[in-house]
């Protein structure tokens, strides 16, 4: 029970940090503009490239719009634990969280859940706005299957990706506890690599071996596949197989993440790095 309370308190704190620095509606608009622009950039690159080659298909446009909308969500997770730890070190919050009885593991989980709560609606908004913007800009709209069932299936895929996202958070947090400079370096690389390796923009088969193998092994790839199965292909078999891999892979990722983070945090405590700041 104490653990649940600690997670909820962290969710609340994360929400306050992300959404309460101004009017929440303004915050949501500010947070939505960038993902929409990123989706439209990818769509425009596809439109420009494929139109010249005469290879444009609305289905492929839908593939890119769904992938890049979800990537915005996945990419955001990479920064949450780093932000929580780096800012926490700076403001002395993190050492205080560390010495509380539940310590920092539920804190980071809560921050990731807060990020999920504020970025999940952004996926829906990005998809909707990109649909209409594509029609206006390219004269062709992506072919989405928009039904209650497909929306619920996509939402379920997003929820199923949470263990994986939190696991990634812990792995990156393990790095953040040690560093007091360049703390944004690793999340930037991880976030950028996920754009290439998670089938956000193109199938894993485009990548040469062994990179394609890496992409196939990442649970985030199956979030993309499950969502596309729901929103584009209407394929129940693809959806269930992707969801199975996403859930199992995510739980493995979470277990590895917690284990890594525990070891890293204990080591950082021994070395006196948990509250180290650099001016």
């Amino acid at each position, binding site marked *: 029970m104490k653990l649940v309370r600690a997670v909820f308190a962290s969710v609340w704190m994360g929400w306050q940090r992300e959404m309460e620095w101004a009017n929440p509606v303004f915050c949501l608009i*500010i947070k939505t503009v960038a993902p929409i622009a990123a989706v439209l950039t990818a769509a425009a690159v596809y439109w420009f490239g494929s139109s010249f080659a005469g290879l444009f298909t609305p289905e492929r446009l839908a593939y890119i719009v769904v992938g890049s909308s979800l990537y915005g969500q996945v990419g955001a997770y990479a920064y949450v634990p780093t932000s929580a730890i780096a800012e926490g070190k700076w403001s002395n919050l993190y050492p205080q969280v560390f010495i509380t009885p539940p310590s920092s593991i539920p804190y980071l989980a809560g921050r990731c859940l807060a990020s999920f709560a504020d970025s999940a609606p952004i996926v829906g908004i990005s998809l909707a706005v990109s649909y209409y913007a594509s029609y206006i800009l390219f004269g062709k709209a992506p072919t989405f299957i928009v039904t209650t069932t497909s929306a619920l299936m996509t939402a379920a895929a997003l929820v199923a990706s949470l263990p994986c996202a939190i696991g990634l958070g812990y792995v990156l947090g393990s790095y953040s506890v040690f560093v007091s400079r360049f703390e944004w370096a690793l999340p930037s690389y991880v976030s950028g690599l996920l754009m290439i390796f998670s089938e956000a923009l193109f199938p894993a088969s485009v990548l040469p071996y062994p990179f394609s193998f890496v992409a196939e092994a990442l649970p985030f790839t199956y979030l993309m596949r499950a969502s596309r199965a729901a929103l584009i292909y209407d394929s129940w078999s693809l959806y269930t197989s992707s969801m199975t891999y996403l859930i199992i892979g995510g739980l493995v990722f979470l277990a590895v993440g917690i284990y890594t983070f525990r070891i890293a945090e204990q080591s950082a405590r021994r070395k006196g790095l948990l509250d180290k700041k650099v001016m």
Partner: protein
Amino acid sequence: MYSRAWVRVRSTYGEPLWVAVNLAVPLLSSLAMALLYGSTGLSRYTGFAILGGIMLAFWGNVLWSMASQFNWDKEVGIFEIYLVSPAPITAILVGMSLGGILATLPSAALVALIGWAVFSTTISPAWDAVLLTFLLTLASLYAMGMLMSSLYLAYGREAESMNSAIGEPISFLSGLYFPSIGVGSPFPFALQLVASVIPLTIGMDALRKSVFYSGSAKNVWFDLMILAVMAVILLYLSDRALTALENKGRREGTLVVRLR
């Protein structure tokens, strides 16, 4: 001006890890876009993605190391030192720009090298036009950064969120990875006009012409003229905005307030 530029250059070249840090976003974004071009069967346009990555390195520097720099300087107490020093703030900003350009060059060069090595893109550059366009684009882009930096003096921690919000839309409108104005643009004319107000749009258009289509300085003279005019106007506006907001901050006592 020299001192501020020197600090920035020294901090980057004295700590080579900075290059690796600055490389992540432009390199991986341009690789992703180049692979997207490749996956749609148009490998000959992968060069557009690499060029976009190169300029994204500078745009990122303008956003995070120019526009919001004063905000971070306030947080760590350096901004007070600027205020009490006899150096004009505009000179500090110009120095920061020059230092920023020199500090970003290695990351941008690595994006170019890795991009061209991986995708073997064919280019047919008119080097005089490329160099001129590149310099004028940077001049106008960093002048825009100076203006943003001045405007951000009025903000506290909101500056970071504002940066996150405007980075992608400007990359999209300015056509970092695809032509957003002229031939091949997906935008309606009205949106192309709006996009043309951004220096990066004009710069990217001229760079694509001069790097990939042998556009000589004669072919891109109109773009160069616009870039030069933009640089002058933005410099003037940033100076005025800086003075106005500095005076307002002094009057209201909010100039060096931290953690707002």
